[in-house]
């Protein structure tokens, strides 16, 4: 059957009969390869030309490409790294996304054979496969469509199976794979879809058989990227000090303007306008959000696969190295929070113990210890899944440490040097913070109540180091109020803070990094990953305090009733929820709110709250985690 190849491209097989057998084709290709070193490159060049078929390929072109690739697979030993450099670079330059499944299969087969046959090709083969984690730039938009998605599955399934085949044939391949993956990771300023699809592949590797070798590096690289993005989201333009006018007003207007302007002109504006910066921030926040979602989904699948404990160790290591000391970390730490919520017994406890260990260990730098205790305080307060016994035992540990510290200090110090004793003050503040959230629930349990009453809080808080004067006034006030209601202890002095958020003394102990106002697990403001966090998160509005008049039942039950009572779930905006007048007196709520947040009072009375719900992406919602905040 002499079918003529109806193609206008100079075909490799022009001279060759179509019904030639496979082995003859292989010999043909081998000859072409051999003749290059002898100076005759005609057939060789034609072969390269076949590799460069682009665009929509006609069926016979596809057939030619497939047969050429298969013939090359049969002639592996004839491929020389030097003489056939251009052929090799053509092959390695091919993107599987441009072809159909037949070509993909043939190409993958060739790549696997190349990698297994000669050590010199391994790196290039792995590199080619890693490059295929992401589609060509032009393809990125198609990913949203079903056809694009189908192609994505076709390509990635083959890429990952190829990687695992290569690992079977070349046992040391995973070792070479790691640096290649890290090197090719998209930059954080690249497009979001690009970053997301690459990280998807990284996480897929982590759960695969190769995960044993490359998994921990993949996770750590992901956390690094999270922090990189996190740090890029700037607070500076968003934070406003205590303005009477709703700050939301101003920002809303600006954004409207800027959007219209940008659409009209279609180019970027110079930095300077608040609106523009907030738009820029949004892109980074979106990327971070998407990556956090990927991370959370991955953790969930690890938990389902009963691998979470092992993965958690890597995560913890990564947390220590990357997140703990990155001061401006706003949301990345929620990955830890979510992981703990998936397995409170092991991971949840491990995290608390880990942080407490850092705090009490004297060999760590002061900043690390202060940061750790801030994480610990925020974690113990916000983790709905934490068993009360763990909270009590960790509190006891902190209290014991503070007491020991007090006992070591002697001498009549009339003036306070907050900076010298900053680790101590951060410990005290942590204790007070946790008790603000948990005191009621502890008092409601007989066993924990007795534990709490036995804790030597008084000697600490009445010590001449005077933590009540130095720590953040808003926290101290709330703590004292609750302590009084619970008859925990009383102070002779009355502290008049006038709803001060911070004082000079607190600033002094907080230092330049302002670790006095660091509450890392304040509500997560990223929209997409919030759904992972919310079910296990304690919002301040949910907390029953000791001075609440209400039923004397455990706060857990209370929260559930609270939840169901109005038929409205917590899922839609805490503010709308809290404004529901059936449950709370607005004044009392405001009173509570003011104590524990820096939300401008007027904003509540503004109908802008509803607008806020619509503008969930508004940077105004991204508040700095400078205080325990109520939504």
């Amino acid at each position, binding site marked *: 059957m002499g079918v003529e190849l109806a193609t206008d491209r100079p075909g490799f097989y022009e001279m060759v009969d179509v019904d030639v057998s496979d082995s003859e084709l292989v010999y043909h290709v081998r000859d072409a390869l051999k003749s290059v070193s002898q100076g005759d490159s005609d057939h060789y060049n034609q072969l390269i030309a076949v590799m460069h078929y682009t665009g929509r390929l006609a069926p016979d072109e596809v057939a030619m490409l497939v047969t050429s690739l298969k013939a090359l697979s049969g002639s592996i*030993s004839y491929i020389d790294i030097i003489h056939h450099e251009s052929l090799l670079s053509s092959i390695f330059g091919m993107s599987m996304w441009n072809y159909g499944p037949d070509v993909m299969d043939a190409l993958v087969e060739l790549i696997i054979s190349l990698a*297994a046959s000669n050590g010199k090709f391994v790196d290039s083969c792995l590199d080619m496969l890693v490059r295929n984690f992401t589609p060509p730039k032009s393809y990125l938009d198609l990913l949203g469509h079903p056809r694009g998605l189908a192609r994505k599955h076709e390509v990635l399934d083959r890429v990952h199976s190829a990687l695992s085949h290569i690992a079977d044939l070349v046992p040391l391949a995973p070792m070479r794979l790691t640096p290649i993956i890290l090197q090719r990771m998209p930059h954080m300023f690249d497009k979001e879809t690009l970053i997301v699809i690459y990280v998807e592949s990284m996480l897929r590797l982590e759960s695969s058989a190769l995960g044993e070798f490359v998994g921990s590096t993949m996770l750590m690289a992901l956390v690094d990227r999270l922090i990189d993005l996190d740090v890029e989201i700037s607070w500076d333009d968003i934070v406003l000090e205590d303005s009477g006018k709703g700050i939301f007003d101003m920002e809303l207007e600006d954004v409207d303007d800027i959007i219209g302007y940008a659409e009209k002109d279609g180019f970027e504006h110079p930095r300077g306008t608040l609106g523009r910066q907030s738009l820029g921030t949004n892109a980074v926040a979106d990327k971070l959000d998407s990556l956090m979602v990927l991370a959370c989904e991955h953790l969930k699948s690890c938990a389902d696969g009963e691998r979470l404990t092992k993965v958690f160790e890597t995560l913890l290591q990564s947390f220590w190295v990357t997140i703990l000391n990155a001061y401006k970390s706003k949301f990345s730490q929620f990955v830890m929070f979510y992981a703990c919520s998936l397995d409170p017994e092991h991971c949840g406890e491990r995290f608390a113990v880990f942080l407490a260990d850092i705090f009490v260990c004297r060999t760590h730098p002061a900043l690390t210890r202060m940061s750790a205790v801030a994480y610990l305080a925020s974690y113990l307060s916000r983790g709905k899944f934490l068993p009360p016994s763990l909270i009590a035992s960790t509190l006891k540990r902190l209290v014991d440490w503070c007491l020991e510290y007090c006992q070591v200090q002697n001498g009549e110090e009339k003036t306070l040097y907050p900076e010298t004793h900053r680790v101590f003050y951060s410990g005290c503040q942590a204790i007070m913070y946790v008790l603000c959230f948990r005191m009621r629930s502890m008092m409601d349990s007989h066993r924990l109540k007795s534990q709490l009453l036995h804790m030597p809080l008084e000697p600490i808080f009445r010590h001449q180091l005077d933590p009540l004067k130095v720590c953040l006034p808003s926290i101290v006030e709330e703590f004292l109020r609750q302590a009084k209601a619970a008859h925990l202890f009383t102070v002779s002095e009355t502290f008049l803070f006038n709803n001060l958020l911070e004082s000079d003394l607190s600033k002094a102990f907080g230092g330049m990094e302002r670790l006095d106002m660091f509450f890392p697990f304040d509500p997560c403001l990223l929209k997409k990953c919030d759904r992972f966090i919310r079910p296990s998160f304690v919002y301040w509005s949910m907390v029953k305090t000791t001075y609440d008049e209400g039923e004397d039942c455990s706060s857990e039950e209370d929260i559930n009733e609270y939840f169901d009572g109005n038929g409205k779930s917590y899922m839609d905006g805490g503010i709308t929820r809290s404004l529901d007048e059936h449950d709370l007196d607005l004044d009392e709520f405001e009173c509570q709110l003011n104590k524990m947040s820096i939300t401008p009072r007027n904003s509540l009375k503004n109908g802008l709250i509803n607008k806020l719900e619509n503008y969930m992406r508004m940077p105004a919602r991204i508040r700095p985690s400078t205080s325990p905040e109520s939504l």
Partner: protein
Amino acid sequence: MEGLNVADANLAVYIHPSKAGKVSQAILRQLSTLLFKYIEVFDGVVLAYDVTFRDKNAKVLPGINSYFGVKLKAKMLLFSPKPDMLLEGKVVKLGKEALHVIVLGFSSACIAEEDIREEFHYRIKHGEEVFASTSHRRHVIKVGSMITFSVKSFDEEILHISGSLIPENTGSTKWLHKHVEEGSIVERSIKKQKQKDDRSKMQEHCTGILDNAGLSLNAEDQPKKTKSQRII
């Protein structure tokens, strides 16, 4: 199997002062970075090591970072395949054009079609791809079989071996053992001596890796007379 030898080395490991409290751990960690890498000084790939301290004192280096050098004596198990050596490995992939083998569980080897002697023909037997010998019916190589092959070249960076099945004493290891009497008596005694030496070396210094790689010398199908050669 050739290519494995035990070397005695005098080493000095330099340790950062922060590890002064856990010196052994630091030394082992430092030495473990050598594993499965080709080290030029040793002229081989380090598979295992066993250390003893030569000196209780260590010399502190002058300079900003005052590393201190601990002197050690180490026995290293090295893998250094040279051309024409006979190695054993497990077949993991079999195709008409090439045979892919893994040696000792970490080193990949490839035997190309032109390096397989005429005796072996590619066939599909019972749906399975095999290389079957035309002169000996039972001499068959398939995926999962252990084969003995000779080394053509060794890529030190990726630890990849290029092998050959051309020499007569290559092929399926199981079959070669069983038919050892087919070779000359001289060959047989040399081979046995080599096996004895290698086995004794390996049984002294073997780690689990070798067992996992399914080295045939530990296989059950040993002819009974070699039991006496095993060193307990």
